[in-house]
């Protein structure tokens, strides 16, 4: 019986089963990274490759995987956070970012429900400072609770809440400033 990506327990060490899993999971993993990395296909490919390679190494160690797709997304999330951290360090050496002054009160009224341009939202998300972006992605795209966001980022709950508040304010500001096509 061919395994599917949503099988509860799947023996992914079998090549046929793995192929089926790969076919089902690849577009979702790739899409996951595209939305979180500014639609950068090259970055998404790199992270997708890293995710699947890490998954295969784990499969070889433990062939039967419970809930393989959520498991794979857990790996993907780790790779994403590593990527954000690398970006943060790379930019930090050039330009020690100061936290932006959040002028939320000065920004025009922004209605998220009215935003329909997905690419514009992804672009605005990608422009957030890395720590804020990571927090917003984990909370609002990955659906983690705030304590889980804090744990993933290695920060206190209070610090994570602060990052989320600033990230949302920044995102609102950026979407308000950009011209609507």
């Amino acid at each position, binding site marked *: 019986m061919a395994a599917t990506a949503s099988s509860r327990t799947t023996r992914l060490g079998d090549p046929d089963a*793995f192929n089926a899993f790969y076919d089902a999971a690849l577009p979702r993993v790739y899409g996951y990274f595209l939305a979180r990395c500014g639609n950068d296909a090259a970055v998404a490919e790199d992270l997708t490759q890293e995710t699947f390679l890490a998954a295969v190494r784990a499969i070889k160690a433990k062939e039967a995987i419970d809930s393989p797709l959520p498991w794979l997304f857990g790996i993907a999330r780790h790779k994403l956070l590593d990527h954000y951290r690398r970006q943060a360090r790379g930019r930090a050496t050039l330009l020690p970012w100061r936290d932006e002054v959040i002028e939320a009160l000065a920004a025009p009224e922004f209605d998220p429900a009215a935003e329909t341009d997905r690419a514009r*939202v992804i672009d605005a*998300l990608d422009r957030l400072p890395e720590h804020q972006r990571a927090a917003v992605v984990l909370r609002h795209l990955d659906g983690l609770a705030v304590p889980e966001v804090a744990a993933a980022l290695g920060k206190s709950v209070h610090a994570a809440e602060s990052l989320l508040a600033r990230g949302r304010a920044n995102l609102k500001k950026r979407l308000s400033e950009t011209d609507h096509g």
Partner: protein
Amino acid sequence: MADREDFDDLLGGLDQPAVPRADFAETLRARLLAELARPASTGDEPIMQTSPIPTGTPPRSFNPPRRPHWLMTAFEIAAALVLLVGFWQVADRFFGSPDLGPGGDQANQPAVTLPAPTLQPAITAPSPAASPTAVVASAMAGGDPGRTGQQFGPAPSGRLQAHLVETGNTESKYGTFASVALGDTLYRVAPIAIGGNADGGSRAENHLEARDITTGALKWSVTFDLAGNPAVGSPAVAGGRVFVFAPQPGTSKWSLEAYDAGNGHLLWEAPLPAWGLGLTGTASPVVLNGVVYAAGPNGVAVALDAKTGAQVWQSTAFQTSDIIMEQSEPGIALQRIGQFAVADGRLYLFNAHGDLGALNLNDGSLTWSFNYAERYGPVTSLQLVAVDQQVIVAAHAVDAPSNATMTTRLDAFAGATGDREWTTPLHAGFDGVSSMAIAADKVVVALSVDLLGTPVADANNIEAYNLNDGSAAWSWRWPNGGDQRSRPIIAVVGANVYFTGRAGVVSIDAETGNGAVVSDPISFTAQNIQFTVSNSTPVIADGVIVLDLGATSGQLAILSSSGAATPIATP
């Protein structure tokens, strides 16, 4: 409006499956299946045999180039099967068919399916490069393609007088990086705070400027559209063109842009491969014989036609996704990543794993590599210069996280083979070697002697070692233990080494090590604070020395001969 729920709706809808490129998907599939089929090993296969420390004996064997381990495995399997089939054929011929189970002959054996190897994309070899040691009129960070620090000069003589020139713009708090000069023109990248806020916001535009090197007068200026990210590094100038890295707005990727050196018109721009990490302030393209080279922190390198920007080759042979260099001191480590040098038909570069690699300049293939991280531990600083069939590397490693143990050393490798020819420890502070240059057949190193606020005891600020055997040639230090926080950036004209310190500009004769301070201290006032210049990168051409005081000052210091008698000698 419930803010959080609205953002859940706004962002939660971003997730959509997406179909990647077909060739990427199938290449990855093949690689994954091969990895799945590979027997579990005890650990990662070694990348490269490293050369042990030489003991004065002749060079050791050539290190084979690295290949993806799964490819090696596929070929090994194929080779083993060929041998096995050959054995059975011989056995069958001379001894009869062995009993192979039911049916009893080889025809009933299941076919062996090998995982399909995925080949590297074909690399198109460009026309052979001209002699890499040919003198070319070019200027880039580190002086020349080999980053030897050599500049065209001529340098002013005698006592120097500094003349401060306003650059006419309000600059951000983030200074310029290494400017370069060719002929009578200074080329620099100057970050400008958006909105003219001298205190600097978190966003900056960048101007690429050309200025008269003796007067500082602006010749032309081009604004990058960076949308919040500063440009980095130093321009490279050759063949009437100025080449510079520019971030692609809203992405983590970079482009290489070429401008007409005469008028600043954009000639072409070419996207660069993903570098994996941000580029650093000292990253600069290298231009040699009509080809412009770039290399990133992940070890990916490209060669582009300098006239058109067309890709000549792209090499992933030295690519790594590992980042070892950032583990201990990211601010220092990443300052050094992205440096590379071109000499003798090879491109020498580091990657973020802490490896040194040599790529063939014709096609980007990997000739050899040396693993610093495995040998020394987490390296925080790697620099190199390349000259005359050698590549000299200064490495600084810190034992993280305690920072209790530091190792700084200088290694010389044979350019063709990667054999280490000599090695010598250096006595340096926390930041290791701040810069290197070649002068008078010596490698001259500028050392950071700061040990978290306390100078390293008995440390020198500048040291020189003979290229042929690494023996110490001479050393120089600031008198009275001064300037212990200095991290000089040295420039060379002929056999004279120049750098700046708080006492002024220093000139050292590289033949003898005799040095002197040849100018008064250079200072300026900004925001009611007096600053004294130190560690600024000297640019030397057309009879002047130019120091870019970009950070906070918004000025250039142009030093020319004052005609005074002998400079004040230091003890």
